[in-house]
């Protein structure tokens, strides 16, 4: 047995040092990088938000100029959506999906590395606008014609449009990778109805990404063609239509809300059963609700456009669809509640964040239902009521689960426990701070305060609510700071974690904390939806390890299984470290900076480099056989 493990160590070990940093394809390293990088963007966007709140603390405050304010909210929104929540959840997916399904890596490890490098490069691309004062300034949905050259002549919008096209490459590649991984690399016996709900969520999200992102890319490509090449897709004077942008954007944008939200509820569905000490109630219902949300999410985009003067018939249709999307959320909420009601809950930090999530998300969901009512939407859309609503949904629906996940999987990822008391303190600060920041915005919205205003006059009844909001954002920031300090402290000083500190039900808890490079010394065999609670099965795994069965020690190997039943099909050889993903991301950066600066020679050179890197990537490699 020792010999087998040693051999696995040797086959999967990645050399230390800077080179290995650039060439690693280990999904766990990549996942953690995703988490850290996305969190860094969260801090940036959080600081932007705090400056905005300071500016709005009092009427007619003059802390920042109007132009700066516009850049702040545009950058804040764009960062939070594209550079924080989505990649943060990709980070969890990357780290966890292979571990949860009993695989040794993602299906396409190099593509996975590429996804990360492109995410980083496109994030830096967008943020490189900041030192020049040219950050995107027309909001995160960047409506035309304001974003056309005639009204925003500088490069702010080119940073936005090209940056988003750039990051789409990363997200799309990541989604394809998740789909194949989840369909093909599950441990034998993990039929699709035994798959962890987190994987269901990642699967549904990945399909949504594949279908939604092209619309965003098309819209931004058209915008760049208009801005730089004299095309007229959106200009009425030339037979175009500004509403075309809105349709294209929201055909992407609304599903994107679910792209953000689904993996987050996957985290919730992971935490709830473990801390309620019982198998989740209504597994099939939850899986179905996840898939349904992903699908119905494509049928509601027009509710972002109810005030544009569309015909009533079409609004009524989209209104009905928007009301309908409540049902899957209802299933989820009540399945979690039923699990808690019939379980024996343990109130640790991850579970507290989940409870906070339920409270906050129910409020966000209820205001969401209100927006499905066309006349109410037409009254309050683009007011602070919307700002309140989408923070309840995005912060409540995604960031609370993310914080739950950070605490829940911290022991697995780091091998150390976080500080429980600090965790609980952070929860209460975040929960109180969050509500203090965003609840008053419902009121200021109903009192008529529009969103995206850099200042407001006094005397309209908005002052007190804005001040409260600003105070709340300080409390919220303090809570987040406690999380950061807790993580940094615990990484060094935390008590060593066992492989399964929570009594978890999924396979990541069956391997050591942190897991070895190869995840599992022996590919586990699964017979239920809570495999780590099947003690007998896990003992059988240990026995097979001793007998030397199903070890797959000849190179980077994992097992491919059938899509539905999860029956063993073949042994797969996975590629190992490579520098090409990094080089390819650099080459893409050259293309995008070339396009940004109108240096078409440079862009062409970049394209050649891209082709070259792809060729290098595919050059046949000697199999990493015996030593």
């Amino acid at each position, binding site marked *: 047995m020792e010999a087998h493990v040693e051999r696995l160590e040797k086959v999967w070990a990645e050399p230390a040092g800077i080179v290995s940093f650039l060439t690693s394809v280990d999904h766990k390293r990549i996942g953690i990088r995703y988490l850290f990088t996305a969190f860094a963007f969260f801090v940036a966007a959080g600081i932007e938000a705090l400056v905005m709140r300071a500016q709005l603390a009092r009427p007619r405050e003059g802390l920042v100029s109007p132009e700066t304010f516009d850049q702040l909210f545009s950058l804040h929104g764009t960062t939070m959506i594209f550079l924080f929540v989505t990649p943060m959840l990709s980070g969890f997916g990357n780290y966890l999906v292979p571990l949860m399904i009993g695989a040794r890596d993602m299906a396409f490890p190099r593509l996975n590395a590429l996804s990360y490098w492109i995410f980083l490069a496109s994030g830096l691309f967008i943020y490189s606008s900041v030192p020049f004062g040219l950050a995107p300034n027309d909001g995160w949905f960047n409506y035309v014609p304001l974003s056309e050259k005639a009204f925003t002549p500088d490069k702010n919008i080119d940073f936005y449009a090209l940056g988003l096209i750039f990051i789409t490459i990363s997200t799309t590649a990541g989604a394809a990778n998740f789909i194949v991984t989840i369909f093909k690399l599950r441990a034998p016996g993990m039929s699709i109805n035994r798959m962890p709900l987190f994987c269901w969520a990642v699967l549904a999200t990945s399909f949504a990404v594949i279908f939604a992102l092209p619309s965003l890319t098309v819209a931004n490509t058209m915008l760049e063609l208009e801005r730089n090449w004299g095309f007229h897709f959106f200009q009425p004077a030339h037979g175009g239509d500004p509403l075309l942008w809105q349709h294209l954007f929201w055909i992407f944008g609304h599903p994107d809300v679910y792209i953000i939200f689904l993996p987050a509820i996957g985290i919730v569905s992971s935490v709830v059963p473990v801390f309620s000490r019982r198998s989740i109630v209504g597994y099939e219902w939850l899986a179905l609700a996840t898939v349904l949300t992903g699908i119905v999410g494509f049928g509601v985009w027009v509710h972002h456009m109810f005030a544009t*003067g569309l015909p009533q018939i079409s609004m009524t249709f989209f209104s009905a669809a928007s009301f309908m999307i409540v049902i899957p959320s209802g299933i989820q909420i009540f399945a979690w509640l*039923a699990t808690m*009601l019939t379980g024996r809950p343990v109130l640790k930090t991850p579970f507290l964040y989940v409870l906070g999530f339920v409270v906050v998300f129910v409020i966000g969901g209820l205001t969401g239902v209100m927006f499905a009512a066309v006349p*109410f939407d037409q009254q309050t859309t683009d007011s602070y009521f919307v700002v309140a609503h989408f923070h309840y949904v995005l912060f409540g629906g995604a960031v609370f689960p993310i914080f739950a996940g950070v605490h829940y999987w911290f022991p697995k990822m780091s091998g150390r426990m976080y500080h429980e008391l600090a965790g609980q303190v952070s929860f209460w600060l975040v929960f109180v701070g969050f509500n203090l920041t965003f609840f008053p915005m419902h009121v200021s919205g109903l009192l008529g305060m529009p969103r995206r205003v850099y200042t407001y006059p006094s005397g309209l009844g908005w002052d007190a609510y804005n001040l409260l909001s600003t105070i709340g954002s300080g409390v919220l920031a303090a809570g987040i700071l406690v999380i950061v300090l807790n993580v940094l402290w615990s990484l060094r000083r935390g008590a060593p974690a066992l492989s399964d500190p929570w009594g978890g039900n999924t396979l990541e808890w069956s391997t050591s904390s942190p897991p070895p490079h190869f995840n599992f010394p022996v590919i586990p065999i699964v017979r239920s939806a809570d495999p780590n609670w099947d003690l007998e099965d896990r003992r059988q795994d240990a026995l097979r390890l001793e007998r030397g069965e199903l070890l797959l020690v000849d190179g980077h190997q994992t097992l491919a299984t059938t899509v539905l039943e999860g029956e063993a099909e073949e042994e797969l050889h996975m590629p190992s470290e490579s520098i090409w993903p990094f080089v390819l991301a650099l080459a893409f950066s050259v293309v995008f900076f070339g396009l940004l600066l109108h240096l078409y020679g440079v862009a062409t050179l970049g394209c050649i480099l891209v082709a070259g890197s792809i060729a290098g990537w595919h050059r046949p490699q000697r199999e990493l056989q015996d030593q």
Partner: protein
Amino acid sequence: MRDQSTLKPASHAAQAIADLWWILFVVSVIVFFVVVALLLVGVLRRRGGGEPDRSTSRGATKFVAIAGVVVPAVVVISLFFASVATLPAVSPAGKNARMTIDVVGRQWFWDVYYRSRSIRTSNEIHIPVGVPVEIRVTSDDVIHSLWVPRLNRKIDVIPGQTSSVVFDANKAGVFRGQCAEFCGVEHGNMALLVIAEPQTRFDRWLTNEAKPAPASAGLSAFVGSGCSGCHAISGAPQQSRFGPDLSHFGLRQTIGAGTLTNTPEQLADWIRDPQRIKPGNKMPKLGLPEPEIQALVRYLESLQ
């Protein structure tokens, strides 16, 4: 009193929306407290942990089906009908508007045009109380949105497209509104006032607005200082539509689309340096000598 609150309706349409809001609000409060109660019972009743319970519970699944599907379905279907029932009240169609006013959204002010009487003004819409008035909106530049919460829903103001909303005030008053679609740097200072007055006062206002400004020394100063290169005053030789129409400016209540109150001091401030007051707006600082500014202020305030 210049309230912009959706909860203080001053028209049938705004009332219908506010009523819908209260329905939505009450239903939401009930749902919220039910969920939170269940949550508290769930986590506080039988705490403790222990070995995982792996039984499947029929009762629990039934609970999910009823509380998670049947009840929400009934609730949202009812709300859907409540919403559809409110639609006619806020839609332009079906209303017999007795008057039409054209409003053009501009970066960052509102042009107002009473076509039937050839009257132009800016940043202020006068309407008679109790008369449904169709407001037809379009834009010359980017997308704006006309939102006067106490009178009706908002309507986006989109270039190349004309849309309508009906203002039918059921009481006299001054109702503040504001642009509600981000339209560039001064989006935050793009307000307007809707002034609803009894029919007779409204008619008097119309008759007064229709009078052109007489030729005077003030008018020549206005032309001489270059103001008429951007601003129209009815009766003036040049009618530029680049900036807001200033006919009868002395009667208007605000300066800079709601940024300042129309007093002689604040008007002088505005003419002295509009960029300090509303940074980025399209009226440049002209650097006029002080006496000329005072003369312009006197003239503009005299335009009653």
